[in-house]
């Protein structure tokens, strides 16, 4: 990997991921809508763990908190955890075929959602629906797509 300025690319893709999470959608679509920003952060943490690093995870989480009006630090904590997980295991995950990568992403998204759920519960927001776990599944399913798309951008340079 010989990218000289992946910073700009990472920032751009992160913003696109954030925008995708903020677009107004009909109600049925929000049930399936995956957390694109988390997928983007996961991609960069696995493929180029040195470029974005923990800063990317924490910063993206903060941006998400600011945009979604959740408790400041909630998404930041969850995303930091997922980023750390991905950075620690990036060599392991990167060597696997796409299908197994999808499984890892699914597990990571589950951990992310579970952390949010726990924090929600602790802060007195105990209400939950089973549908909150659906986006983790769709997130895992579109992982090959994310890899294909982002890989095209950052490997074609």
């Amino acid at each position, binding site marked *: 990997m010989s990218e000289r300025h992946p910073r700009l690319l990472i920032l751009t893709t992160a913003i696109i991921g954030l925008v995708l999470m*903020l677009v*107004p959608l009909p109600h049925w679509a*929000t049930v399936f809508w995956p957390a694109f920003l988390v997928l983007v952060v996961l991609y960069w943490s696995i493929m180029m*763990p040195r470029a*974005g690093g923990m800063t990317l995870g924490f910063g993206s989480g903060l941006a998400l908190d*600011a945009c*979604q009006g959740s408790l400041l630090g*909630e998404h930041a904590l969850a995303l*930091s955890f997922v980023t750390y997980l991905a950075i620690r295991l990036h060599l392991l995950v990167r060597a696997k075929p796409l299908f197994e990568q999808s499984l890892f992403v699914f597990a990571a998204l589950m951990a992310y959602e579970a952390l949010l759920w726990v924090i929600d519960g602790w802060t007195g927001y105990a209400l939950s629906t089973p549908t909150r776990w659906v986006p983790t599944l769709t997130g895992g399913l579109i992982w090959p797509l994310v890899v294909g798309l982002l890989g095209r951008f950052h490997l074609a340079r």
Partner: protein
Amino acid sequence: MAVFGSDLDRPLYGRAPSPGLRFTVCVILSIALMYYDRHGQLVQRLRFALDAAVYPLQVAVGSPSRAWHWLTDNLQTRAALQAENLQLQTQLRQLELRSMRQAALEQENAQLRELRASLPPLIQHWQLAQIIAVQTDPLRQLIVIDKGTHDGVRPHQVVVDAHGILGQVERVGPLSAEIILVTDPEHAIPVQVTRNSLRTIAIGGGSDGELVLPYLASNADIRSGDLLVSSGLGGVFPAGFPVARVIGVRRESAQLPAQVRAAPVASVDRDREVILLTFSADNPAAPAPNPPIAPAPRPKAKSTAKPIPSDDE
């Protein structure tokens, strides 16, 4: 914290600070932020700045749909506009007829309350705001509007649309404000059944866009079709504004509370514009001036315009 994207050729491990250390720092920072967001004032200020920072992004994200609405509004045919105009005129005439006796009724009401001077209008000031973002999380029912402290928006201000109460302002940024809808599970509004003045509390039902009334005994006199209006208790909402209509009542046994569902009368998921209200405190229907805690004793007023406590205090 390490600089974003620096030192690509250095090894991942064995340089300071390690990802583990940085992860720990991130975790501590997040937890501190969460704690002070709930309990402190400092983070509130940071939040204020962050709101201003994400405002352009929120506007940008909402712009395609706004552009589409603008386009369709502008490309409407003359016939469609004429039809709409006609419909609005009919509506206006109906409203005029309905409000014709309003002034007389208000006067009569004031006399019944032995209040010689006429009451100030309940709504002192209103302000139109555009919705710029909708919270997509199915568990939270929040919207963001394009008015903030710059335009005089305050927390706990009541937000309505043309049909009824929509919610209240939860957090105010410099240019935007976050509104919690009555359908949010964290939101409760004191209501009253118009048919028999039964008072209770309506809590948001979450993603299904409904309200639930969990505090009614199974023998409570309530049925489908009942209109719920705000009762004026609680100090945030004024009395007598439509909130929801009961759509389902289930009574399972005498011991359990009745399961009552209600649909908001405001078109919560279809609005593009909302109205922010400011009430004149002298009107008896206005919410009490000191919201969450016990209402302070009213100051002694002059005999000409003596505020009469409303009957629900």
